[in-house]
C-alpha cells in the first residue's frame, strides 16, 4: 500500500510539474552505466568497421566528400551574400536577425527506450552544456528537442512524438501552422489550418521561430497530402519529417548565440507538453 502511494505521488509529481526532476536526474545517472554497457558493443563494432575499411574505399569516400564540399561551398558563397542582404533589410525594418547558431555534435546511443514514445538517447549531457528544450537537428532538418538532460547523457523527444508540437511556416508563402507529432516516425500533422489556406503537396515546412524554442528557418518537413473536406472547418494536412529520424547517427545541438528571446514562455507554443 505504502509503495503504491509513493508511486502514485511520484507519477503525479513527474507528470504535472517537473518536480521530480532531482530524483529523475539521480536515477538517470545511476542507470547510465547500463546504457553505456549496451551501447559499447555497437560502438566497438563501428570502430572495427572503420579500421577495416580499405584504402580504396577511403579514397573514394574522400573524393565524394570533396565534391560535396565544393558544391556546398559554392552555395554558401551566395548564402553569405543573401545573409548580408537580409541583415541590411532587417536593419531597415529595425528588427534584429540572428544569423549564427553555434552547434554541438552528439552521437546517438544505441539503446531502445520506451517503444511507445519517440525518444532517443544521446551521449552529451549537462556537462557539455546541454539544456532542456534545446533544439536537435540532423543534416536534413529538425529532429526534436532535449526532453531531459542528465549529466552524461540526455534524452531527445522527436518531433513525431504524439506529445510534441512545433511551430512551422510554409516556406513558399509564410503561412504559419503547428506541426504535431502523430506517433508515426514518418508523419506529422498540421493542425488547425483553415480549408482555404494555400498549402499544396510538396510545400516545404520550415520552423517559424515562434515560441522562442526552435531557431527559425530550419526545415521541418514536406507536405505530402492535403485533404480538404468542405464539411469540416480545418484541412487535414500531412507532412513527412525532413530529418532522417530513424537513420541519423550524429545529431547537432543548436545553441542560439544571442538569444533575443524575451519571447513568450516556451510552453506556449513550441514545448513538448509532457
Amino acid at each position, binding site marked *: 500500500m505504502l*509503495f*503504491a502511494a*509513493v*508511486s*502514485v*505521488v*511520484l*507519477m503525479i*509529481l*513527474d*507528470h504535472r510539474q517537473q518536480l*521530480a526532476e532531482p*530524483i*529523475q536526474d539521480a*536515477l*538517470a545517472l*545511476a*542507470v547510465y552505466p*547500463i*546504457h553505456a*554497457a*549496451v551501447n559499447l558493443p*555497437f560502438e566497438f563494432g563501428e570502430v572495427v568497421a572503420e579500421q577495416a575499411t580499405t584504402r580504396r574505399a577511403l579514397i573514394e569516400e574522400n573524393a565524394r566528400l570533396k565534391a560535396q564540399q565544393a558544391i556546398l561551398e559554392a552555395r554558401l558563397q551566395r548564402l553569405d551574400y543573401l545573409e548580408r542582404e537580409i541583415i541590411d533589410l532587417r536593419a531597415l525594418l529595425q528588427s534584429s536577425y540572428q544569423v549564427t547558431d553555434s552547434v554541438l555534435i552528439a552521437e546517438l546511443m*544505441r*539503446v*531502445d*527506450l*520506451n*517503444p*511507445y*514514445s519517440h*525518444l532517443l*538517447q544521446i551521449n552529451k549531457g549537462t556537462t557539455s552544456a546541454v539544456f532542456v528544450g534545446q533544439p536537435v537537428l540532423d543534416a536534413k532538418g529538425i529532429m526534436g528537442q532535449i*526532453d*531531459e538532460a542528465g549529466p552524461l547523457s540526455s*534524452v531527445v523527444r522527436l518531433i513525431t512524438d*504524439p*506529445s510534441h508540437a512545433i511551430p512551422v511556416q510554409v516556406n513558399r508563402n509564410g503561412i504559419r501552422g503547428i506541426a504535431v507529432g502523430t506517433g508515426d516516425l514518418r508523419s506529422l500533422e498540421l493542425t488547425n489550418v483553415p480549408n482555404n489556406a494555400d498549402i499544396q503537396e510538396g510545400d516545404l515546412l520550415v520552423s517559424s521561430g515562434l515560441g522562442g524554442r526552435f531557431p527559425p528557418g530550419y526545415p521541418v518537413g514536406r507536405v505530402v497530402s492535403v485533404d480538404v473536406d468542405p464539411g469540416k472547418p480545418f484541412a487535414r494536412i500531412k507532412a513527412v519529417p525532413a530529418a532522417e529520424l*530513424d537513420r541519423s547517427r550524429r545529431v547537432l545541438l543548436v545553441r542560439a548565440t544571442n538569444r533575443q528571446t524575451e519571447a513568450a514562455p516556451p510552453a506556449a507554443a513550441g514545448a513538448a507538453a509532457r
Partner: protein
Amino acid sequence: MTDPQRQGGWVILASWLLAYVLTVLPLPTLLEKARPEWVALILIYWCMAVPQRVGVGVGWLVGLGQDALQNSLLGQHALAYAVLAYLTLKLHQRIRIFPLWQQALTVMVLLLFTRLLLLLISGFTGQAPSGWQYWLAAFTGTLLWPAVFMFLRQCRQIFNVR
C-alpha cells in the same frame, strides 16, 4: 551474507542487471514491440522461489529502475511491479507445484494484468499506446517463461541462493 539463511544475493542482483540490459538492447523495429518484459519475468521467478527475500519492496525498486532506464513516467513500472510482486507472493505456493505449462499460463495472466495496469496509467496521462501489438509483450513473455524458469533455477541451484 553471513546469515546462513540468506546467500547468493549477488546472483539476484546480477539477474536484474541482465534483465535491464535486455530491456534496452536495441532490436529491429519489427521485434521491438514484442520484447518481453524481462524484469517482470525475473521478478516473478524470484518472488516464487525466494519469497522471503524478494517481495513487494524489491519489485517496486526494480520497477523504478526500469522507469529511469526507459525514461517512462517515473513510478509507472514501480507501481505495476509492486502489484505484480504482491500477486505472485499471494500465489507462489500454488505456482511452485504447477507443471511448467500451467505455470506459464499463470505467468501469462500475471503479465497481462501488469500490462493492463501500465496501460491504465499511461491512459491517465493521455499517452495511451494504441494497437494490439501492445499486448504482444505478455505473450512473448509467456513463451519465454519455460526458458527463463529453467535458466534461473539452474542458477539458483548452482549458487545455492536462499
